[in-house]
């Protein structure tokens, strides 16, 4: 079901929990599906001993993908026209992530209502790990 312009207003926000206690296996699963096998995400020995990080960490694109679910669940299937993010902090195994999308504008473009959203994903400590924006076609 698509979101209706008549049912939303600027300032409305939508939230959901994306993941609790992010598992290393989910990071491996994302590596396999996406094709990004960078050992920084799956290989603890390489990541600690060679690259110098405290542990493996999630692909930024895994966080962007998980956050995308909030957007598509909110606006409806196939309705996104734009989605862009900055990765502002790393996501580690064990993190809890929650995302919020807030309506920042609703305008009509060529007769079609378009909603603009700001998007933010935070970890269990309230640290913003992803920050961005999106736009979607609404029903009238």
């Amino acid at each position: 079901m698509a979101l209706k312009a008549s049912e939303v207003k600027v300032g409305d926000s939508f939230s959901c929990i994306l993941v609790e206690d992010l598992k290393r296996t989910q990071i491996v699963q994302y590596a396999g599906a996406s094709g990004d096998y960078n050992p920084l995400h799956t290989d603890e020995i390489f990541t600690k001993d060679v690259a110098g990080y405290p542990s493996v960490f999630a692909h930024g694109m895994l966080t962007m993908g998980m956050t995308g679910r909030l957007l598509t669940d909110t606006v409806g299937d196939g309705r996104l026209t734009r989605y862009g993010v900055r990765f502002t902090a790393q996501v580690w195994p064990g993190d809890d992530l929650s995302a919020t999308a807030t309506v920042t504008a609703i305008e009509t473009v060529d007769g079609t209502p378009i909603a603009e959203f700001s998007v933010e994903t935070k970890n269990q400590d309230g640290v913003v790990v992803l920050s961005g924006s999106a736009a979607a076609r609404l029903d009238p």
Partner: protein
Amino acid sequence: MAVDRFPVEYSHIMMFARSVGDPNPIYHDPEAAKATEPGAVIAPPTFVQASAQFDPDYVLRPKIGAPWFGSGKNPTGAQPGSGGGGNGGGLHAEQHYEYHRHPQAGDVLTATVKPGKSWEKQGRRGGKLLFQETITEYRDQNGDLVVTARGIGVRTERPATAEA
């Protein structure tokens, strides 16, 4: 990632949606998808990133018979390859997508890559940061633009744990 042939397949979409924790039936149930507005299994918003699977030169995938920089029993000392997309040992700073339409199972896409801007910045913890923008255009079997992607990768002098 320049890719000559990126077949968008139902089972790949299913696996990708599972990996990002999205149970929406439009990504794994062709019958249920028929009843939706798109009317078919479509790709989730970040799926085109998986075109890496079809880039023969992608450096972040082990190649048969070639050295791999990840560890076996111990670190191998091998270096990451260069070129061929990804961030080649760097980190992903930003990603932006513009959807002209959403890819569906059955589409066969191509991806062409144009380098964008590059710039330098002094980081708080990671030393000097080198940014590189890349613009990728995904077109379908009719040559129509489907998704425009703009990615920004960053290379750091030292491991960056607080900023990318």
